């Protein structure tokens, strides 16, 4: 096992942190001889995109603060995007259910890799690394119904790609989330109000 992570430690890591890219970032720093502080800082940047996601789902969660904090732990990219209802609210049951399935697959995948990884070979030779971006692409196409959403997607992608060569991993996606501030424009807000009134949901 690379980087001094035993198979058990790798599985525990998956089971608790449950965010592949952050795990790889921190493990590669430890593997390259970096300190624990640098490894944790790198993982924090990789997971910083969960901050806007967590703020977005917050109002949709029911229950007391502790229960909501526990539900917040189920936020991961794919299930977060899948559970968005498109009106600014999220389906908490769909989020938790989708994350439970992803969680089981993530932990079992890590266990398979940690125990039999040497015999299976490099997962990238099966193209497995293309699965997540392709899945996100599918979710993204669903979101591009309005012209404004298409513009925001283009802006988010552009911001991320410009920042990739000049910032540490994780920062490009976090900063790209600021493209959503286009929603503060008067026209965007007016459209939200119009739609809410049409649906008979005065808020």
């Amino acid at each position: 096992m690379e980087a001094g992570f035993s198979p058990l430690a790798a599985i525990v890591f998956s089971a608790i942190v449950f965010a592949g890219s952050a795990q790889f970032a921190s493990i590669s720093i430890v593997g390259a001889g970096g300190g624990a502080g640098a490894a944790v800082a790198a993982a924090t940047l990789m997971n910083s995109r969960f901050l806007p996601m967590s703020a977005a789902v917050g109002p949709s969660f029911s229950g007391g603060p502790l229960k909501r904090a526990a539900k917040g732990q189920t936020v991961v990219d794919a299930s977060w995007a899948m559970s968005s209802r498109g009106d600014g609210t999220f389906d908490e049951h769909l989020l938790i259910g989708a994350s439970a399935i992803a969680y089981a697959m993530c932990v079992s995948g890590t266990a398979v890799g940690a125990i039999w990884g040497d015999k299976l070979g490099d997962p990238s030779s099966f193209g497995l690394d293309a699965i997540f971006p392709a899945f996100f692409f599918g979710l993204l196409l669903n979101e591009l119904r309005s012209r404004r959403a298409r513009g925001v997607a283009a802006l988010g992608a552009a911001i991320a790609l410009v920042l990739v060569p000049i910032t540490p991993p994780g920062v490009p996606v976090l900063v790209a989330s600021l493209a959503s501030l286009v929603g503060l424009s008067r026209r965007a807000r007016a459209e939200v109000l119009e739609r809410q009134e049409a649906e008979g949901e005065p808020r």
Partner: protein
Amino acid sequence: MSTPAIVIAGCCAITAAIKAVGPVALGGRELPTWFTSVVILLSPALLAALVATQAFAQGDHLALDADTAGVAAGGLVIWRTGSIIACVVLAAAVTAAVRAL
């Protein structure tokens, strides 16, 4: 404590805090219009950034490689057929094929 144990503990604590802060601070609140309007656009912004960085970047540099071709093929399939399963399977297959060349 060994370095892996410290890294695991540190990552767990910080990730848990990041994921808890939104639900604890904002849970059960009425959404102001501006917040709803921004949240609606957060999905396209974040998903596009995730797709772009995973398909066009390797670590800290931009690169067109096998997974770029795979994701492009997958995108074409979901756009034409709407099947997310076919999209994901073809993306992996094309990536593997280009890599094997």
